[in-house]
């Protein structure tokens, strides 16, 4: 069940204009326009997103369940390799009516192992990392399932505009960078 705060409509003109359609992470089953964030008002949120480029990365109608699509974000520079995946299950931060479309940077946040080819459909997990076997749960914001990474996989924030999927921001630091926006 969605919680109260998830239902709070956005007061931010900026938000509605950009028509965010990613669901709040906090609760399964809450499909909502991005809304109240504890400790962060709409404008602050907008400002944070404003740091990142808005980039068209795919079309919802063309995504197939469990077939990840590679893209680069927030730039084409080193370590920007990311995956857009339509999962067979709902996910925190997932877009689409089923809340099952998510995107993550695909470098392991332990020591940068390349995990672009390691998606495990049965478990909606990325990994094991080829270097030291860390695994990450794509339904739960890239949280480490088992392993050594010192942060979750950076989640790419998505926005759905009609059928178009845009990458609009990122949670967490890309491995090997000191600032996501400096490559």
């Amino acid at each position: 069940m969605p919680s109260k705060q998830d239902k709070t409509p956005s007061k931010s003109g900026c938000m509605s204009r950009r028509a965010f359609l990613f669901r709040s992470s906090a609760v399964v089953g809450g499909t909502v326009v991005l809304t109240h964030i504890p400790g962060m008002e709409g404008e602050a949120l907008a400002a944070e997103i404003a740091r990142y480029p808005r980039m068209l990365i795919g079309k919802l109608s063309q995504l197939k369940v469990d077939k990840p699509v590679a893209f680069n974000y927030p730039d084409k520079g080193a370590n920007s390799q990311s995956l857009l995946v339509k999962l067979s299950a709902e996910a925190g931060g997932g877009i689409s009516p089923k809340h099952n479309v998510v995107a993550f940077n695909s470098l392991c946040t332990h020591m940068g192992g390349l995990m672009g080819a390691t998606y495990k459909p049965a478990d909606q997990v990325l990994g094991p990392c080829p270097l030291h076997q860390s695994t990450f749960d794509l339904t739960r914001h890239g949280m480490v399932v088992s392993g050594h990474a010192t942060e979750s996989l950076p989640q790419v924030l998505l926005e759905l505009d009609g059928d178009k999927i845009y990458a609009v921001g990122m949670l967490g630091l890309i491995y090997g960078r000191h600032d996501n926006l400096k490559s």
Partner: protein
Amino acid sequence: MADSNSTPFYHPEDKVPLPPKNAEVLTTCCDYCSIACGLKVYRWPVNSPDGGPKKSQNALNRNYPLRPGQGGWVGPNQYTQATHKGRLHNIAIVADHKSRVVNVGGGHSIRGGCIAQKVYNPQKPTQDRLQHPMIRINDILMPVTWDFALDIAAEVSKHVIKKHGESAWALKYYSYQFFENTYALTKLALKSINTPAVSQHDHPAMVNSVPGWVDIGYDIFSASHEDFSLADCLVISGTDPFETKTTLWNHWILKGIHGNNTKVIMINPRRTAGVAYAAKHGGLHLDVNPGSDTVVHMALQRIIMENGWEDKEFIKKWVANGWETDSGFGQGTRNTPWQWRTTWGKFQVKGYEGSPKHFKEWIYAQEESKPEVAAKIAGIDVKKLYQAAEMMAKPKANGERVKTSICIEKGNYWSNNYLNTASIGTLGAILGCGGRPGQVITRLGGHQRGGMSGGKYPGWKSPYKVPGRRRHRLDLDRWLESGHVRFAYVVGTTWIQAMAGSSALQDTFKRLVKLNPNQVRSFDKQTIIDTLKKRVDSGGTVVVNQEIYLRDPIGNQYADIVLPAATWGEEDFARANSERRVRLYSKFYDAPGEALPDWKIAAMFAKKMGFHGYDWKDSNEVFEETCRFSRGSRKDFNAIRVMARRKGMKAHDYLRSFGTTGLQAPLLIFGDKLIETKRLHDYNRKDIPDTGPQGVTITNKRLLAFKTQTGKLNLVKSPWKLWSDFYDFMQPKDDELWISNGRINEIWESGFDDYERRPYTQQRWPMNFIELHPDDAKKRGIESGDLVAIESKRVPVQTDFNLGVKGGDMWFSGLMKKGHIKLATGSLSAVAIVTPAVKKGVAFAECLHTSQPVNNIAPRVPDPITQNYRFKIATGTVRKIGESHFKHTFAQMTFKRRDIV
């Protein structure tokens, strides 16, 4: 924006400042597991420029972005701020990417990788560090001065010792938190006070964890990390180093699997990532029932010997014959653990083979060594025993011996302590393990090796008498329960949840401390002292807890006096790791408030009690004093002091000059040459002159031979019947399951750093959990994410200080018959994780969760042979209470399987 989309309380950063070129760089090591990865601390003042992404612009000397696999990344959890000499600084703590030992190239685990978040920072969850001494007045802990608190502690201590004897004054402390501290604490307890009422954080008494090897003659930390990449076959029992000794796995064991084709055999009821990975790469998983290892070892021995695959040459040269065994067991005077265990014929054999009194014939005569019988007891496919024996011992096609190494941890020795360690030790002996590259036998270790004893344990003062002329060291938990501890000095351990049968132990503390009518209700020092004296004279206990956080319940509920300690990073300290590598752990920031290092508090306390020999000015002086007491030991580091003197340096500074590499002990000096030791029992070693000991250098026998009188290994028996009465009692009855427990990768055992104060880790593990096999879960209507209650109404707790007179008195059945076992209750809640990775009939929870402690249901009947607890083999019922918050939310916890490889 990131925050809401991740979790309600954790905001992952998307940028981190880099240390500038002129940042100060200090070396230290990780504070957690026994591997002790080398770390570099970068420090630069807040409000001074940060570094840039070019190599020429940052102190890491790296071009950003880094390439995959390149060490030296500063992630969000590697950065914090702290004051240094009163000024706020940026701090980045990064695994040393220049390291050529231990964590070569800058490896680290999730635990040590986040260690910057351990640093006291008033803006972060570490802000509740203890800062001032406190005294409980009207049941509220109130700040007082050091003098006020210690005057009271000292006066009450003196009274207790005078009136109730030194055995009424107890020290419960960590065995590992740096040489300087353990030395000072034990100097006070063992040398100055000379009490037998001392025990460490993980044992009820001052005992060895691997007593079987003590009797056989194996040192418990003989290997070097490199050995793990050199073995053909690596047998790992009772742990998964992927989870618990991460860099050993990530660097050294993976190097073996991929570079040397090492086959790894894991003996463990659970399939964790390392187990699954090993199995996938030609290894084998022996998914034994908890507590059944001994029969597995015996069956392997039988198969190996029946096929003639034992290392005959090694046995001939290094295994003692009958006469040698007799002399080899004479390891001390009458009252030593060796003597009690090995006399009376229970364990001793006449040598390898030749008569029914020899080892081989004894194994053949045991019903439990028959593979089918052993497989049934262990609950495994018998084929796996044959397969494992082949992998360990069957000669290669070219006739060469397989190089096999064995390593063990707590799943092995905290279930059936003596028999498991004895039988895996003798398995090692017949396989030729010990002293050769890739052919070693060792513990992997838990905490690091920071113990130094400042005095000799007064064994003769222990009142714990067992049949024959034998005496065990004092079981402090039972001593407390029996009302003999009047003053408890508890340093750096959660005495209660860390011990077995902890609910019953908590009742004891409540009775002796809280329910005693003599409670402090005044700020007048003399009145406080008089009240506490009345408490102890009326049979109660006064508790002093020295800690970095207020821990519940020992500090929060029971301590009369709380003393704030300074820790890792707040003082210069020295310590060894699991390959005996000694390093300097630099102080790099100011301790919070008035907190002081434990050595210093112990010294102030001792002086107030009127003892001499505590006038150290700094931790270096303590270290220099400890050096000579390390002589001849596994971590003999006396050479550091000697070399430093020759160079006119402080010993700490000399050690510091070796950075994260440190020095691998035992250290020897020949002429002006310092010689390190890669592995013990290294009988092929050539760098020790045969002129014998020189000056300050001791060439202990264990350097070139084994640790017995003769230098040869003593084989010992492992009679199953010495365990089976207790094991039968512990077997799950009705709808009970085995409730085993242990560590998991993401959480170090000092939960106060991880799941209590690290949002990133709290996100992953917000509560204790219990892994259940799908069949067991289904039967109970449990799904992943359900909140369950785990309970036992029959937690056996050994009581009383009865004297053992007849042979069987002190075995479990004897104690039961005479009424010295009480059945206590224990319960905890946990979040269910349903996974085929755990064996059917076995459930598994995290071992040291302080608010949902699984030790509540762990049996408190120490191994009667060795006084080790059997933490890992609890039993209990599991029933659903409802759904946890995490079942239907995405922000915290995940229920995905952890064995995906």
